[in-house]
């Protein structure tokens, strides 16, 4: 039996090795993805993003514990976790430390945790995070938690990867305005103030609530999906709830897990899940198309032409844009 069949049958070592092939962009990984893709589309993909030190890993740990503890018809949902940490741009090395906060999850065969280095990915994810998530989805993980790099401002790529995006903030990280920087608030389906037991928490909650009310003036920030009949906003609106948690003590986790499920129900009831699926596939294909074109270009022209052009730009003979245009025109002429 090949790795793909073994992974689909529940062999965890086979799944782990497939993920490495996918992550390494090996031909075997691409082939596996092709075989796995028809099995995808069942999992609920939940992104967890936010600044460094807001407690994302601890929150993911608690969420996974909680979800595993809920049994429906005698079984509980299987949870996949993909945690991304930054690679050093200089050495390519990385320290992937998210497991430190996830030790409670050890020994549960219904949980699979994979750490990923960003390997040059800039949007808070690695280039292959989407593909790794697909492998977990195909292999029967019902809910997949995707934890981004903790940069705090630029990791908006998660919104085009997940169905539900949870943005985590915590008090005491300095400037409250930091929390509401462009982009990051807009992608939140659920906002969490973690470490809600710290002195600065009420202030952080207030400033986020204000930002939400500005962003969703008609929807009354903080109301839950179930309240929508009362504000007359109709089923098309989702007002991101603002939740408080103390992840180290498990406080607020049940409510957060409930909000994640509510959001999924909302996506399905409103039909928005289809819109998001389409958007996700478009974003993935767009990225793959760019990558593939760049690789084809380098294969056709060789890297030499590229580096020659770099020299001409350095000498200020060409602008970067002119150089790229020239390279591409050169490629089409040769064909």
């Amino acid at each position, binding site marked *: 039996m090949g790795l793909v069949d073994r992974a689909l049958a529940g062999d965890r070592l086979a799944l782990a*090795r497939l993920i490495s092939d996918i992550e390494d962009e090996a031909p075997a990984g691409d082939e596996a993805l092709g075989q796995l893709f028809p099995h995808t589309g069942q999992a609920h993909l939940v992104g967890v993003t936010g600044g460094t030190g807001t407690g994302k890993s601890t929150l993911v740990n608690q969420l996974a514990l909680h979800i595993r503890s809920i049994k429906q018809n005698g079984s509980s949902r299987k949870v996949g976790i993909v945690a991304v940490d930054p690679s050093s741009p200089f050495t390519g090395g990385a320290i*992937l430390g998210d497991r430190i906060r996830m030790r409670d999850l050890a020994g549960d065969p219904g949980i699979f945790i994979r750490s990923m280095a960003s390997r040059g990915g800039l949007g808070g994810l690695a280039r292959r995070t989407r593909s790794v998530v697909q492998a977990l989805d195909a292999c029967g993980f019902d809910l997949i938690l995707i934890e981004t790099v903790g940069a705090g401002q630029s990791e908006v790529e998660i919104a085009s990867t997940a169905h539900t995006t949870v943005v985590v903030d915590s008090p005491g990280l300095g400037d409250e305005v930091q929390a509401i920087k462009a982009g990051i608030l807009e992608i939140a389906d659920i906002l969490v103030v973690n470490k809600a037991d710290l002195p600065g928490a009420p202030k952080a909650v207030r400033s986020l609530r204000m930002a939400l009310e500005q962003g969703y003036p008609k929807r009354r920030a903080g109301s839950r999906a179930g309240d929508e009949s009362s504000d007359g906003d109709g089923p098309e609106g989702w007002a991101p709830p603002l939740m408080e948690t103390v992840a180290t003590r498990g406080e607020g986790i049940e409510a957060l897990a409930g909000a994640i499920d509510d959001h999924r129900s909302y996506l399905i009831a409103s039909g928005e899940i289809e819109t998001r699926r389409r958007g996700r596939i478009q974003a993935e294909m767009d990225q793959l198309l760019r990558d593939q074109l760049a690789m084809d270009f380098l294969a056709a022209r060789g890297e030499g032409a590229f580096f020659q052009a770099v020299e001409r730009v350095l000498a200020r003979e060409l602008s970067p844009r002119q150089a790229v245009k020239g390279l591409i025109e050169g490629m089409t002429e040769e064909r």
Partner: protein
Amino acid sequence: MPKTQQRVLIAKPGLDGHDRGAKVIARALRDAGFEVIYTGLRQTPEMVAEAALQEDVDAIGLSILSGAHMVLVPRVIALLEAQGQTDVPVLVGGIIPDQDIPALQEIGVASVFGPGTETEAVIQAFRAAIGSNDHGH
């Protein structure tokens, strides 16, 4: 072409609370271009083997200062074998008496480092251990 990264697990099985050595090695390996999965203190052998499996690492470094290496290391290796991870080399660092080293090598440990080993030597040992097995990356 994308360069394939080496992935290693640095784990501290057992009960001693000293992780400075493990952290120094983790950082040195990162600076040498490795992706280092660091799992923190007080790991059971089961946790180490399971993390190695899920992360599909190319090598495992165990840091043990408690004196329990002759119990913990065989247990980790037995678990790895039971999972089919026979091709993943295990390296051990910490306070390991010289007389225990042959026994550890006998059960398959690729390298043993005592206190004061240069980090460069550790990095070279990881490279050699990964290079000498055919774990398919």
